[in-house]
């Protein structure tokens, strides 16, 4: 069996490095042009080159999204851009528009072609066609259940399956809600996320059905419990959604999924699902997560109606910059408020997290302070256990 890939999002170069550092086998990024998520920072061609160099040095791959649905006036610069991606040694492009496959062949551009989830591949016959025409990998529609995933894998085409992140309400690549309601083109990076709005529902005679707002917003997806199933099914790549997400979110998710994949592969017979990791994962997400279509068709329980349990996450307290072995102190950069006496949790790639009590806090002037109040402030706290640069510090929520 080939090694399964853990694929993480990276909205910029910093996030790319964090994702790989925390255990991603591959990252997907967007360039400044031809990519959805127009509001993400996205990469210049020089940044793509730097990202690829960093990734390859760390045995990871980089896929670049070229996933807008092209209009007749959007072709300018595309061939040159694809050549630049080839020269940058990117490992594949993720595209929605199938003509790019011919464009690569006609221009002798050697880039692997992954078909985006925007193509909404829901069945094995569609996958069979894509394989025949030279698509190396299909990113499956998020509506696929496990039987469909198996049927598509049977076509001997590489499959990429979303395991975590936001869901679209409607079939991807087929949704014009944003176009009609905001004039922003959802298929060219302008999606206004209309499916997160609330509405009223009226009957066919335009009489209001009830005072309860009508919403169509889905909860997020998490297939943490089903990682062993996906590995055994032969999925090629497990994909985390969220190019706009923070480094804390990416590092936390990548670390957890990495640990689950590695634990299962190293000892399948004795593998046990770890509820503690589930708690970490759910805490990090800002919406509830659920298995969505994987086991059965979603019902009312898989979506939101009255508002959302969407919380702004203040768990992330700081980044470890260094460890002073002599003083037994962590040197950190603050991200959210914490104070003397708090119990905090420290974690890093491929290792168990642990708690410490904040016995004191010192600033760069060596002054004792009662609380860490200022974002990006450099501080020292005591810790007997050695930590590593780029470990992360968060609120201890395990005892809540």
């Amino acid at each position, binding site marked *: 069996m080939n090694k399964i890939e853990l694929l993480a999002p990276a909205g910029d170069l910093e996030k790319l490095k964090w994702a790989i550092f925390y255990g991603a086998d591959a990252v997907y990024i967007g360039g400044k042009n031809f990519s959805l998520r127009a509001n993400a920072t996205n990469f210049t061609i020089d940044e793509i080159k730097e990202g690829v160099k960093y990734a390859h040095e760390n045995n990871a791959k980089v896929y670049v999204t070229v996933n807008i649905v092209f209009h007749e006036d959007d072709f300018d610069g595309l061939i040159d851009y694809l050549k630049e991606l080839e020269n940058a040694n990117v490992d594949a492009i993720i595209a929605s528009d199938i003509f790019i496959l011919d464009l690569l062949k006609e221009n002798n551009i050697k880039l692997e072609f992954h078909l985006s989830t*925007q*193509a909404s591949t829901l*069945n094995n*016959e569609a996958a069979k066609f894509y394989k025949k*025409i030279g698509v190396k990998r299909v990113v499956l529609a998020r509506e696929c259940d496990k039987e*469909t995933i198996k049927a598509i894998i049977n076509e001997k085409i590489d499959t990429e399956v979303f395991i975590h992140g936001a869901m679209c309400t409607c*079939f991807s690549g087929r949704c014009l809600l944003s176009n009609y309601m905001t004039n922003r*083109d959802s*298929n060219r990076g302008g999606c206004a996320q209309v499916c997160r709005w609330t509405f009223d529902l009226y009957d066919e005679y335009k009489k209001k059905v009830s005072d309860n707002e009508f919403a169509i917003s889905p909860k997020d997806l998490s297939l943490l419990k089903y990682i062993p199933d996906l590995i055994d099914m032969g999925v090629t790549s497990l994909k985390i959604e969220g190019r706009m997400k923070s480094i804390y979110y990416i590092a936390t998710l990548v670390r957890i999924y990495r640990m689950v994949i590695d634990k299962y592969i190293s000892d399948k017979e004795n593998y046990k699902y770890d509820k503690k990791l589930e708690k970490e994962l759910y805490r990090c997400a800002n919406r509830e997560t659920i298995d969505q279509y994987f086991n059965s068709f979603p019902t009312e329980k898989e979506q939101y109606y009255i508002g959302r349990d969407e919380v702004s996450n203040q768990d992330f307290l700081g980044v470890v910059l260094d460890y002073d072995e002599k003083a037994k102190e962590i040197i950190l950069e603050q991200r959210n408020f914490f104070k003397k006496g708090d119990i905090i949790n420290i974690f890093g790639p491929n290792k168990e997290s642990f708690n410490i009590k904040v016995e004191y806090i010192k600033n760069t002037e060596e002054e004792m302070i009662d609380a860490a109040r200022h974002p990006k402030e450099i501080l020292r706290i005591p810790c007997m256990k050695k930590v590593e640069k780029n470990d992360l510090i968060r609120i201890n929520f395990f005892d809540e």
Partner: protein
Amino acid sequence: MNNIIVSLPTKENFKFFSENKIDGFAMGIENFSENFNHYIKESNLKKVIDDINKNNHKVYIMLNKLYFNNQIDDLKKLLKKLSKLNIEAIIFSDIAVFNIVKENNLDIKLIWHSKMVTNSKSINFYEKRGLYGYIITPQITLDEFIKITKNTNSKAIIKLFGYTNMATSSRSLITNYFNNFNINKDSNKKYYMYEKITKEFYPIVESDYTNFFSSKVLNGIMEYKKLINNNIDCMIYLDDYMINENSFYNIIEAFVALKNHPNDEAFAEKLKKVIDSNMFNETDNGFLNNKTIYKVKKDE
């Protein structure tokens, strides 16, 4: 050139359609199609198609759904059956249809109908592999469509009348709402989603999937005039979904009248008003003259 296809109305008034020189009918098949006022059962297909052929009209079968894997076996059987019937073409949305037809060498012309039909290069990609035609997606402007027709050889079709399907969800969104709030749901399938800021009512219909529609009815008769005046070789599609049947006949007559007098500006304006009034002035011309925003700026 500029022939008219209409969705097959419940009452098939073939005399009317012959007099008005309607080229053909788009029709939906129960379980395999969506967004039709009525569906043909698979068991009745031959009879209905024979009746239409007898009256010298063409049949376009609209398979405008995306299919889950558990529907594929039935889809294969249907396509084999259709290949033996006298139909002009299948209008498809799922690439599975294209693959099954080609892999089994079925003698069926294929017309691509998807929101991905946005540019000539993608159309040409499929044309090289045996595509016969396409229906352009509604977010494309008329000028873009004209450019596309010039850069492709496939049969071009543009929808110029009817509600526009904005999106489709495989979730049962209306049933879910009723279940969540413990409200008894009646047998209605059609509801409206009301957007409070713009005060627009968007039709939303739940059957196998949940479909969202534009708040206004597309009235593209002036664009039809432009297509004829510019000698654009294409067909137009008039869609009766959720439209009163008598009004739809008026709409067809208006488009046919325009086709017969394409150079008369004042007459075209009058016809436009006829269509608007039949739709209680709840009309617009969608994106035909209105580009959507590609790059979103920070303050948009």
